[in-house]
C-alpha cells in the first residue's frame, strides 16, 4: 500500500486528482480576482508607470500560474513533473530533520510567530497568500508517493480538511479579534456591538439551514461515493494492525499514551482536561471579552487555551496521522513507512537515573518474603526522588511563580484577585497541562520513562 509503485504508474494514478486540484485552485483565485475587481475592494500595492499592481491583479496572476501547472500535472512525463515537485534532496533533508523534537518545537515556534505577528498575518491579502502557498506546497508534495499514500488514505482525508478548516476559523477569529483590539485602542465599541440587527427565524434562518442541509447531504453523498470506506480485515484478538491508530480525534490522546501510563494518559489527564474546562467560569475573574472577539483583553486566557488546543491537541493529531508509522515509529512526511525501522529507545525511570547513575548503587529492594507494609515502604523509598519532585512541582512551584520573575507580575495579580484556593487550583491545572510537553521533552532528550515508577501496584507517573 505504501509507495512501491513504479513512478510512471504512480503518476498516472495521481494525475486526475492533481490536474483538477490545480484547476480548482486557479478557479478559486479567479473568483477572488473577480470579486475584488467588481466590489472595488482591490487594493493598489505598486504603481509602475501606467500599470497598477493591485490585489485583484495578483489573484489573477496566481490563477494563471495554477492554470499553467495543471496541464503539467496531467502530463505523465517524469521530467516535467519534477518541475512541479519538491526537489528530492530537499525532501530527503526534510525527512532527516524531522524528528519529534524538531516537529514539536517547529510547530510551536511557527504558531508563536503567527501569534506575535497576528496584526500582519491576519490581513486578508497575507492570509490569502498563505493559503495559496500552503495549497501549492501540498500540491507539490503530492507527487511524492509516500506523502500521497498517507494523505489520500480515506482515514486521513478528513484530517487534511481539518487542517485547512481549522486554519480558516483560527484566522477568522484572530482577524476579528485584531480589528476589535484596534477599535478598543481607539475607544470604539467592538464590531459585534454594532451588529445588533435582528433577523427573522422564518424565512432567513430556516432557509439558510435548509440550504446548508442540502449542501452537506450532497457533500456526504459525493464523499461516500468517491472514497472507499476505510474498512479493514476482521478483528482478531491475536493480530493488531500495524500501525494501529485511534480515530483521528483521539490521536492526540494516543500520542499522550506514549509518554504516560494508561491510567494517567487515558483516564486522569482527560478527566482533568474536562474538569479544568468546567472550572474555567469559577477561576476566571476577567470580565472583559464577553460576547466579542478579543486577544489583548484576555491575553492569558487566549494564550493558555490556544496552547492547549493548537499545540497540545491539533499538532499531536497531525503528528499521529501523518508522522506516526508502523510500530508507532516517527517518520518524515516523505519517508517510506518501513516496518523494520530501528530506533533504539532505552527508556529509563527517574529512580534508576537517581540510584544507579547518580549514586552508583543498587536500587533499594525489600528483602525476600517481607510483609506488604515493608514492601510498600521500600517502594516509596525507592521512588522518593520522583515523588518529591512531583509533589514539589505541584505545591512549591505555584508560590514560586508568584514570588520570582519572569512571570511574577502576572501570577501575583492572579493570586491577589483569586485568593489562595482558587489560585492553587488554577496553577495546578496549568502545571498539569505543562507536564505533558515537559514529559515529552524529557523522553526525547534523556529517555525518561516515568517520574514515579511503581509497576508492582500499577502506579506510574
Amino acid at each position: 500500500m505504501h509507495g512501491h509503485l513504479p513512478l510512471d504508474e504512480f503518476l498516472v494514478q495521481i494525475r486526475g486528482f492533481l490536474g483538477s486540484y490545480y484547476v480548482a485552485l486557479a478557479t478559486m483565485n479567479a473568483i477572488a480576482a473577480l470579486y475584488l475587481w467588481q466590489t472595488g475592494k482591490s487594493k493598489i500595492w505598486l504603481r509602475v508607470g501606467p500599470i497598477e499592481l493591485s490585489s485583484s491583479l495578483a489573484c489573477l496572476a496566481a490563477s494563471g500560474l495554477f492554470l499553467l501547472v495543471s496541464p503539467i500535472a496531467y502530463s505523465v512525463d517524469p521530467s516535467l513533473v519534477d518541475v512541479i515537485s519538491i526537489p528530492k534532496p530537499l525532501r530527503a533533508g526534510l525527512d532527516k530533520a524531522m524528528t519529534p523534537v524538531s516537529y514539536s518545537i517547529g510547530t510551536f515556534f511557527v504558531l508563536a510567530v503567527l501569534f506575535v505577528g497576528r496584526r500582519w498575518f491576519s490581513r486578508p491579502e497575507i492570509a490569502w497568500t498563505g493559503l495559496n502557498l500552503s495549497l501549492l506546497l501540498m500540491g507539490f508534495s503530492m507527487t511524492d508517493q509516500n506523502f500521497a499514500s498517507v494523505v489520500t488514505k480515506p482515514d486521513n482525508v478528513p484530517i487534511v480538511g481539518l487542517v485547512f478548516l481549522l486554519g480558516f476559523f483560527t484566522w477568522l477569529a484572530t482577524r476579528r479579534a485584531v480589528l476589535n483590539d484596534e477599535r478598543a485602542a481607539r475607544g470604539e465599541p467592538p464590531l459585534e456591538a454594532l451588529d445588533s440587527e435582528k433577523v427573522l427565524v422564518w424565512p432567513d434562518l430556516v432557509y439558510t439551514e435548509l440550504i446548508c442541509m442540502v449542501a452537506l447531504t450532497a457533500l456526504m453523498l459525493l464523499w461516500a461515493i468517491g472514497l472507499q470506506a476505510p474498512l479493514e480485515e476482521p478483528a482478531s484478538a491475536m493480530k493488531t494492525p500495524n500501525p494501529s491508530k485511534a480515530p483521528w480525534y483521539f490521536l492526540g490522546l494516543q500520542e499522550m499514551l506514549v509518554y504516560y501510563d494508561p491510567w494517567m494518559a487515558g483516564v486522569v489527564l482527560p478527566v482533568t482536561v474536562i474538569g479544568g474546562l468546567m472550572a474555567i467560569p469559577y477561576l476566571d475573574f476577567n470580565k472583559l471579552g464577553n460576547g466579542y472577539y478579543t486577544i489583548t483583553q484576555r491575553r492569558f486566557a487566549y494564550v493558555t487555551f490556544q496552547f492547549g488546543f493548537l499545540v497540545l491537541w491539533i499538532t499531536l493529531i497531525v503528528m499521529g496521522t501523518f508522522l506516526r508509522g508502523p510500530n508507532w515509529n516517527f517518520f518524515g512526511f516523505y519517508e517510506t513507512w518501513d516496518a523494520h525501522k530501528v530506533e533504539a529507545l532505552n527508556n529509563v525511570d527517574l529512580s534508576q537515573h537517581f540510584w544507579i547513575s547518580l549514586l552508583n548503587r543498587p536500587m533499594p529492594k525489600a528483602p525476600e518474603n517481607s510483609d506488604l507494609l515493608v514492601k510498600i515502604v521500600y517502594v516509596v523509598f525507592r521512588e522518593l526522588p520522583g515523588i518529591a519532585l512531583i509533589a514539589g512541582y505541584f505545591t512549591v512551584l505555584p508560590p514560586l511563580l508568584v514570588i520570582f520573575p519572569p512571570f511574577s507580575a502576572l501570577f501575583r495579580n492572579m493570586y491577589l484577585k483569586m485568593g489562595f484556593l482558587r489560585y492553587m487550583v488554577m496553577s495546578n491545572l496549568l502545571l498539569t497541562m505543562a507536564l505533558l510537553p515537559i514529559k515529552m521533552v524529557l523522553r526525547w532528550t534523556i529517555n525518561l520513562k516515568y517520574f514515579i515508577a511503581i509497576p508492582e501496584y500499577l502506579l506510574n507517573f
Partner: protein
Amino acid sequence: MADKKKLSVEEMLAACRKQDGGGGAGATAPQAQEDPSSQVTPPTESTPTKATKATPAAAAKPADRAKMSVAEMLAAARGERSESAKPTSPAVPARSEKEAGAVEKAVVAKGAEKAAAVKTAKPAAPPVGSPSTKSPGTLDTASILSAVRSAAKPGPVSKSEAPARTKPVEEKSKKIVVPPMPEKPAYAVARPMSTAATTETRRGFFASVNAKIVGSSLALGFASLTVTHILWVLGLARFMFPNILTEPPTRFKVGFPDVLGLGQVDERFKAQFGVWIVKAEYEGQPQIFAIKSVCTHLGCTPNWLEAEQKFKCPCHGSGFYKDGVNFEGPAPRPLERYAIRISDDGQLEVDKSRVFHEELGQWKDISSFVPV
C-alpha cells in the same frame, strides 16, 4: 393575512371587546384596574395561602359571570398566577366586601389596604401605580396594557433581578395576616372507607378473598416482582456457566522441548493461543518459558521482529527484549508469563490459567519456566 400578523395585543383585545358587545364594559374597567396594580406588586404579597388568592376571582365571578369579557378573564387569570390576588386599591376591597361578605375576606382587605398604603408611599411605585389611582371610568386599554407590560417579566429570575424581587417580601412578611383556612366543602371531606365486609359487592368479594390469601393486591404485585427478579438473577448466574466452552483449552501441549534452538522464539501458537514459546537465557540461566502475547501497556498484540530481536507493539511502540522485559516505549512492566511444565509424555504443556509477573518477583517460581 399580513394584516392579521401585525395585530398587536391591544388591537386583539379591542376586537374581542367589540365581539362581546361592550356589555361588560362597566365591569371590566374596575376589574382590569385592580389587575395592573396587583401585577406590579407580586413580590409584596407572595406569602398568602391559596385560599386568599382565590378571593378576587371569587369576587369577580358572581358579579356578572355571563358578561365576562376576554380582558376580564385574562385579568382574573393573571391575578391568580401572580399570587397577588388581593385587591390593592381602596375602592375594590369595598366591593369585594359587599359581594362576599365573609369575615376572612375583610381581613384580607385590611391587610391589603396596609400594603397598598405602604406601596404608594414608596417612590418605586408611581409609574406603575398611576393607572390604579385613576378613577375606573377614565381607564383605557392602552394604560392597562402599559401597566401590565411594565410589570415584572415572567419567567426565571436572573441574579441581578433577584434582590429587587425578594426584598419586599422580607420587609412586609410580618405585616401580612394569614387568614384562617376556609371550611372544607362537603364533597371534599373524606368518607370512611367502605370495607368488603360491610358492603357485599363483587369487587369487594374478590378483594377480601385476595386479602385472605396474600394480604393485599399491592403485596401480591410486589411479591411477584420479587420472584421474577430472583429468577432473573438466577438465570444470569446460570449464564455464567455455559454447557459448552467454544474457546480453546487453557491447557495445551506445544511439542517437545528439544525442538527449539537456544534463542529461538516460537510463533506457531500465537494465532490460536496468544502465546510465544521462547527458549532463551534469563538472568544467565537458559530456560523455556511461555510469554503471553498481550502488551502490558494497553493490551495490543505485539509482533516478534526477528531482525531486531525484539517484541514490538504497534499501538504505542512499546518494545520488549526476547525474555519479555520492557525496554522502550510506554509499557510499564515486562510481558507476562504463563505456567509451563513438562507433561508425562515429555511434551511441554502450557497452562494459561496461571500468569507470572516479573515485577512481583514471580518469574522465580519454578512453574513459570522449564530449565534447560
